[in-house]
């Protein structure tokens, strides 16, 4: 239980300035969690919504690569906690600020420590939306943010990202089963690298009783736009996220 941890009691307060926490998840790597999480936050900010992005892929954070940030301590401001820097309008927090973007080998409970530390210290401004990027797997990082958000926050939702690949679908099914059993609020599925054809994603959505919120097409230009948010928002992938925002607000 977290409750006896001195940091836990502060976290509820810290998250109070946030209307909606959106956890972007899938146990399968490479389906587009990071890309979709970062683009969703950028797209929301582009629409004038106060948006934040929190990278909880602690051992291998990648959102700074999408945002084009060279991560380091010089980006954060200490003021009775840490005020996250605003990157293209997005209030941004990542463990990479503290690791300089190097790989962080973490054991079990250490991940929980890092998450509690970061959540306890980060002073989010008023946000309409905080998007949380998570690592693949069903490990401490994912379990912690689900527990914390569903226990402490009044409006937290999970977006499950998948492609039409069988391995990705199976991974999404696994997570959706766990979310259903735990009564977590699932916003729905996002199909990434979609071809437009009806795919296993539709079958999965029906079987699990969730909605397909958006279909993000495969865009060969995305790789070159990494690190350049304005260019990213102009890719087909970036534009497709309007669909997701439309379903959320």
């Amino acid at each position, binding site marked *: 239980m977290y409750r006896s941890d001195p940091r836990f009691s502060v976290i509820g307060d810290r998250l109070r300035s946030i209307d909606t926490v959106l956890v972007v998840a899938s146990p399968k790597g490479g389906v587009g969690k990071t890309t979709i999480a970062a683009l969703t936050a950028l797209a929301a900010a582009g629409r004038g919504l106060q948006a934040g992005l929190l990278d909880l892929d602690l051992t291998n954070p990648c959102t700074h690569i999408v945002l084009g940030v060279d991560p380091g301590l010089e980006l954060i401001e200490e003021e009775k906690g840490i005020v996250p820097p605003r990157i293209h309008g997005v209030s941004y927090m990542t463990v990479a600020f503290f690791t300089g973007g190097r790989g962080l080998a*973490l054991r079990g409970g250490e991940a929980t420590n890092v998450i509690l*530390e970061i959540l306890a210290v980060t002073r989010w401004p008023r946000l309409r939306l905080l998007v949380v990027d998570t690592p693949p797997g069903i490990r401490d990082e994912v379990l912690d943010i689900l527990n914390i958000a569903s226990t402490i926050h009044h409006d937290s939702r999970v977006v499950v990202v998948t492609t039409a690949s069988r391995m990705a679908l199976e991974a999404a099914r696994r997570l959706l089963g766990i979310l259903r059993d735990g009564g977590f609020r699932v916003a729905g599925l996002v199909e990434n690298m979609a071809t437009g054809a009806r795919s296993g994603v539709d079958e999965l959505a029906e079987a699990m009783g969730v909605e397909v919120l958006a279909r993000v097409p495969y865009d060969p230009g995305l790789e070159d736009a990494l690190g350049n948010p304005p260019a990213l928002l102009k890719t087909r992938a970036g534009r497709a996220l309007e669909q997701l925002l439309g379903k959320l607000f």
Partner: protein
Amino acid sequence: MHLERLEVAPGVHEWALAEAVLKTLYDTLGCRRVDRLVLGLGELQAIDRDVFLFALKTLAEEMGGIGRVEVREVEARFRCRRCGYEWTLKGAGLGEEEREAIHFVPEAVHVYLSCPRCGSHDFEVVSGRGLAIIDVEGEGCRVQE
């Protein structure tokens, strides 16, 4: 990339820690008044003691106040999970910025240190990680296991 904030203010997440300690005392442990508090402060959590104590006193005023506060430093010790070697922070040769990063997120130490014997970044932080409430005396405090 453009940043809307670039200023850096030094060492004041002491306030966040002080707030966390007080919340634990007054909310979790149910204290109504705190007469004496003993804190164990991990070496990795290299906070500014004066700022921290000032924050603690200041923030406590809105609650039931705080009496005598004793802060004990707990040395950082590491044990390699591959070869079993043990070592301490002394002589580990960390730079200023590295220490600063670790003081925010102690687990970042896994990036900046590796086992002096086998080079593994997979080691246990045996002691000296965080901030612990070692003892508390006062009114109404339910001390938990």
